[in-house]
């Protein structure tokens, strides 16, 4: 079945530094989402990005579908960016619509 690998597992930054989170998946996906999970548990969808590049504020997501990888770039990190980031994909055409999650990248930004 589809597998999702995220790297690094954890990342510690000083405020103002940039972060690059990676997601690799084992087979073609029709849907890819990046999520941020608050410490309390709520998952917030950051990007729905099956291909190409998308920007919102200080965040940029780039997915290269034929290379089965996606990245999330956080510029000028802030302490409020601390939390866990997940990449999730589906099984592709003809498969289930359920999301398959990576194990997450835990980001800690200190002031």
């Amino acid at each position: 079945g589809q597998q999702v690998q995220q790297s690094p597992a954890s990342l510690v930054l000083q405020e103002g530094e940039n972060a690059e989170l990676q997601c690799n998946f084992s087979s073609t996906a029709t849907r890819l989402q990046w999520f941020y999970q608050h410490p309390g548990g709520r998952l917030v969808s950051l990007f729905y990005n099956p291909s190409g590049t998308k920007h919102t504020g200080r965040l940029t997501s780039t997915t290269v579908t034929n290379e089965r990888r996606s990245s999330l770039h956080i510029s000028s990190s802030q302490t409020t960016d601390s939390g866990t980031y997940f990449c999730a994909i589906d099984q592709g055409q003809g498969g289930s619509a359920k999301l398959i999650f990576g194990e997450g990248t835990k980001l800690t930004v200190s002031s």
Partner: protein
Amino acid sequence: NSKVIQTPRYLVKGQGQKAKMRCIPEKGHPVVFWYQQNKNNEFKFLINFQNQEVLQQIDMTEKRFSAECPSNSPCSLEIQSSEAGDSALYLCASSRLGYAEQFFGPGTRLTVL
């Protein structure tokens, strides 16, 4: 921001007790998903619905778990006889279409003592 509502936020049960949690999907989202996230951040898909119909569910769901999405009422997920291993964060998500972006609620954190 997601408008998916989940209640209760926290649930504590003894082993063998029933545990029931509810989800109100975003308006206009006929597809609802339930996921379980354990303490190791591993996500497991449980079941999904389109309107009131089950689309897919895993074996675990078929045995001790039951779920429904009745018309004009919240969706629900119930564990008939809770086990310690059921302690987890239960997340509900909704989407416009099966393969569209999914939006998640805040989750119900279940602790089975």
